[in-house]
């Protein structure tokens, strides 16, 4: 008869609350809930667009609701959080070698932020054309 009796510790359900790193991970994953919501709002906008001008304007008006503003602000924050985490992890999936050296992670991250800035400004400009 073996005297061994390995003790298995159960993972608590709220494991992700017990360690800051995990909490941040969960926020990252959780950001997708609000981003889903935002995408639904956009999809709804396309639907209203297809229904004609009145419908579309109704959609635009609804977005002016203070509740909508606050919601969008929140969504913006989480979307930015997603952006930051996405960029910081991006180098790990990149396997670019230049002259026998792996491209520095910092360069890859910086390139992402650069492109992000350019795209953001581009979008802001193009919308006001």
């Amino acid at each position, binding site marked *: 008869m073996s005297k061994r009796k390995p003790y298995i510790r159960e993972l608590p359900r709220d494991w992700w609350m017990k360690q800051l790193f995990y909490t941040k991970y969960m926020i990252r994953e959780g950001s997708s809930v609000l981003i889903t919501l935002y995408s639904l709002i956009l999809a709804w906008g396309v639907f209203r667009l*297809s229904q004609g001008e009145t419908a579309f304007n109704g959609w635009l008006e609804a977005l002016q609701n203070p509740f909508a503003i606050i919601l969008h602000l929140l*969504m913006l924050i989480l979307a930015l959080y997603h952006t930051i985490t996405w960029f910081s992890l991006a180098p790990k999936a990149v396997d670019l070698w230049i002259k026998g050296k792996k491209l520095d992670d910092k360069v890859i991250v910086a390139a992402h932020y650069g492109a992000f800035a350019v*795209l953001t400004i581009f979008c*802001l400009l193009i919308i006001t054309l």
Partner: protein
Amino acid sequence: MSKTTEKTYKRSHEPVFWGLFGAGGMLTAFLTPVMILITGLLIPLGIIDQHYFSYEKIHGFATTWYGSVIVLVLVALPFWHTLHRIFHALHDIGINRGRDWQQVICYGFAFAVSVFVFTLLLQMLTAPSLFGF
């Protein structure tokens, strides 16, 4: 060497979803913040005048072939990213029952919304005048 127990390996179909997740994640990272900024804050608050986002302008854009593609990608692709994460997060928080159904619902939802938006755009593209009357 003995060839007794060569394991059988079962390929996962995850690459399909992971590919869409990655594409959606990339798009979300680069463009969603500015999109939220424009549609959710700057325009509703009037910082950008609403005429830049008028029905004519948007409808005109969405009824060009390239415009409709752009709108489809911008609106539908993020779902494949976010629903993928939601599906996996359900597992993370210990909701383990019916993983198959969870999968069907999550990706099915992304698929349904994609088809929905696609249909709307196609409708607008092929019959633009219909709504004019």
